[in-house]
Structures are given as structure tokens and as C-alpha cells.
């Protein structure tokens, strides 16, 4: 396996305090080593702490215990501000700012990260093109469909050229057909951009289509119960994947695991 770009070691997260009687441990102990260009997928029941885990990885919240290692540097329980540029975060709901056009939403990222110049402006177009929305550059979010909004959200998370893309159930709010279509688009984006991706989903088919490795979380407080390597070559991952024997084996296996965890 390639270089370790990002490792989390015994991450834990709790909310509240015992004194106030609202103490809640959400993540008990999660460790994973993530290699360059890997596609990690996390599966788990609703409320088990998947979003919480991603927020820690994306620098939105600090962990309560454990540590993270980014490119060989120990950064402790929280992503330092200067390292946030390495991450792009796609939210569970699209989270676009309604007063900015598609282009404006991507531009915000560049403005905040102080990335100026012609090459970055060009990159806005490139990223909107990658998600197939170049023609919708100057359109406001309320004029876009749910799937389109989510695609702008993905383009935004890529525009500053991060190393690691974090996606929190990016397709959760979409209808089945759009969802299927967009999952193939994410696959293509991964192939094209060669990013390291960490994604949460609740859909097993989606997980096997996309993942290099799948981690299954227990119910709250979360620990990793299973780690599954998806040994299907990238070339075989396409619309015909349903006929792949290995795919169907894994599908059986993981569905069994997920059913048992319910």
C-alpha cells in the first residue's frame, strides 16, 4: 500500500459533562491509517457517530482524546488552521450559501483560503465542469435541483485542491435514480482527481462500488467492528459491477454484518 497520508489513533469524543448529568460518549475508540489515493467508506447505523467522526477529521470539532498524524506530523486532537487547506468537506445537506451563485460559492472557498490569481479562477470552471455544471455557473442555489446542489457542494470541496476529500452522506437526501447516477460520478471524480477520499454512507452497494476499504462502526459509543478490503480492481468498477462475482460475495457478506448490527 502507498504512503500513509493520514492516521487517526484512538480517537474518542464525548459531549457534555458528568457533573451536569448530560455526559454522552459518542466515539469510544477509533483508529485508522489512510493511504494516499485510498477511498475509505464508513458504514454505520444512524446516530452512531459518523458525522461526529468526520467533523473531527475535517477540523470542525476537536476530539476529546487520541491523536492524528498528518503527513508524518503529529497534530494532536484537532486539525490546526494552517492544515485545513488539505481538506475539502462535503456536508450531509448541500450547505450552499443561498446568496451566492454556484460560482460564488466556490469563490468563497478561495477567498477564505486566500487563493488568488488567474489559475484559481480557472480552477472554478474546471471543477464546475468536472461535476457537469459549467453552464450553471451564475445560477443561484434555489434554482438548482437537489442533485445539482450536491454537485456544487462537491465542486466547492475540490476547488482549493485539497489532498483529502471528506464526504458526509453526500447522496443521502437524493432520490434513488439521481443517487445511483451521482455515485458513478463520485467514482469518476476519484479516478480523475486521484484524491484521498473518506466518505460516510448508509448504502452497501454504494460502499462496495466506491471503497478501497470499508469500516463498519458499532452503535454509539462507536468503535470499528469490521474492516473490509474491497479487492475489486478499479477497471471493473462500472455500470456492469452488478455481474461481478466478487461484488456479489462482498455484498452478501456486508449486508449480513449490517443486519446483525441493527
Amino acid at each position, binding site marked *: 500500500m502507498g504512503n500513509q497520508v493520514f492516521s487517526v489513533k484512538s480517537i474518542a469524543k464525548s459531549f457534555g459533562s458528568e457533573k451536569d448529568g448530560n455526559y454522552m460518549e459518542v466515539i469510544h475508540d477509533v483508529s485508522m491509517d489512510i493511504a494516499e489515493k485510498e477511498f475509505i467508506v464508513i458504514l454505520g447505523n444512524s446516530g452512531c457517530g459518523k458525522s461526529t467522526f468526520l*467533523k473531527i477529521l*475535517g*477540523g*470542525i470539532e476537536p476530539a476529546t482524546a487520541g491523536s492524528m498524524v498528518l503527513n508524518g506530523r503529529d497534530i494532536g486532537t484537532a486539525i490546526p*488552521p*494552517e492544515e*485545513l*487547506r488539505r*481538506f475539502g*468537506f462535503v*456536508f450531509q*445537506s448541500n*450547505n450552499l*450559501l*443561498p*446568496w451566492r451563485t454556484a460560482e460564488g460559492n466556490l469563490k*468563497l*472557498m478561495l*477567498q*477564505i*483560503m486566500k487563493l488568488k490569481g488567474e489559475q484559481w479562477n480557472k480552477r472554478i470552471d474546471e471543477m464546475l465542469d468536472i461535476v457537469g455544471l459549467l453552464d450553471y455557473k451564475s445560477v*443561484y442555489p*434555489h434554482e438548482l435541483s437537489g442533485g445539482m446542489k450536491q454537485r456544487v457542494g462537491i465542486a466547492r470541496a475540490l476547488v482549493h485542491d485539497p489532498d483529502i476529500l471528506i464526504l458526509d452522506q453526500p447522496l443521502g437526501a437524493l432520490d434513488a435514480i439521481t443517487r445511483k447516477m451521482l455515485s458513478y460520478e463520485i467514482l469518476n471524480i476519484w479516478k480523475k482527481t486521484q484524491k484521498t477520499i473518506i466518505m460516510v454512507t448508509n448504502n452497501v452497494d454504494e460502499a462496495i462500488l466506491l471503497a478501497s476499504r470499508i469500516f463498519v462502526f458499532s452503535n454509539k459509543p462507536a468503535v470499528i467492528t469490521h474492516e473490509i478490503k474491497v479487492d475489486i480492481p478499479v477497471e471493473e468498477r462500472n455500470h456492469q459491477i452488478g455481474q461481478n462475482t466478487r461484488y456479489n460475495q462482498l455484498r452478501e457478506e456486508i449486508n449480513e454484518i449490517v443486519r446483525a448490527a441493527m
Partner: protein
Amino acid sequence: MKKKNKLISFLAPVVSFLLIFSLWEIACTVNEVPTWFLPKPTEIFRSMVVDFPEFWPHILVTFEVVLMGFLIAIPVGLLLASLVTSFPLVNAALSPYITFLVTTPLISLIPLLMLMMGFGLNMRITTVVIQSFAVINMNACTGFNNVPTIRRELMQSMGADPIKTYLKMTLPSAASDIFTGVRLAAIFATTTCISVEYNAGNTGLGSQIIKYSQYLKTTQSFACIFYVTIIGLIMYGLISFAQKKIISWKE
């Protein structure tokens, strides 16, 4: 179809306006209502034109006080709301005083302010500011407190500093609540200005309304009231225009 709708929505108020004033006119004429009791609209409109030179300086004074007070109240209210919602300590320290200002009937403050500042414009503008900044503050606070958590998380994931977060996310998120406050403040400003003029000095439309009604010159009194209405309409128009220019999106 759209054009037709526009035409109708323009004509409807014009027609109802004409209807109401015609009824008023007819009622006064048929019942021979004395002018000192309720003048006819045509007489009022005539006075608005004929006595205009006499009214003009007072219109200016009132408009200046309303506009100045209003324009000062907006940044004061916004700044205070921003501080209060960003720093819990400021909130704890100031919220009792803001509540005090909102709940104290303004009339009871006027004699005090007159004592301290005289009858002049400064005192009037101060009163207008005191009375109108609080509604802006309250509505802006609502707006700031209702900013979706997920948007804060977005700014955090980008590593935005507090000032950029405020300018690029918080302020636009709260914009429509802020405008609600601004609209109310315009009403408060006009009402306050007139009630100050009732009580203090002999300039401004409020003082003229009192003066004319004391002399039973009800027609002139009404003309002044109509000019107050026009000032209110101008304020309303300005705010609507600004709101259309600034908030061009849908949530």
C-alpha cells in the same frame, strides 16, 4: 398575463384611494359636517398646496429628525446585536438596559431629555435613536442567533476567521430579520419624532398639528398629518428599495 397582474396591482390601491376619499367627501357634504370638526378631503388637499410655503420648513425639520435618528439607529442597533450575540459577557452586562429602554414608555423620558439637552434637533434625534435602535437590536439578535449551525461548520471547515465569518456568513444569514427590525424602526422613528414635537418646541409637523388644532384650524392640522403620512411612505419606499437591492436571493 404577468403584465395584466401588474396593472391590476397598481390600479387596485388607486381605485380604493379614490373611493374612500369620494365617500368621505360625499359624507361631509351631504351631512353638512362643519369644517372645524372634519374637513373635506378636497379642502385638505387644497391646504396642502396653498399653505405649503408655511408647512415646508416644518416638513424639513421633521424629515431631518426622522431620517437622522433612523440612520443612526441602524448601526447602533446592529453593532449592539453583534456584540451581544458574539460575547456572552456583553450580553449579560447589557441586556437589562436594553429591556429597560424597550419597556420604558418614551413619553416619560422626554421631559428628562429636554432638561438635559433643550428643545433642539440634538434632543429630538437622540430620542428617536433611543426609541428605534432597540427594535433593530432585538430583530438582529434573533437573526444572528438563528444562523444555522451547519453554516458555522462550513466556515470552520474553511478556517475562516471570526471577522470573515461575520461578514460573509452571519450578516447575510441574518439579513431578512435585520430588515424586519429596520422596517419597524422606521415606524418607531416617525411616531417618536411626532410625539417629541407635540411636547417640545414649536418647529416640526407635530408642533404644527397641535398649534392648528388649538386654533380650530382643523384643515391645516389634517394637511400636516397627511404630510407626516407622506414622510412615512417615503421611508417605507426607501427601505423596500434597499431590501430589494440587497436581498436578491431566496433561502
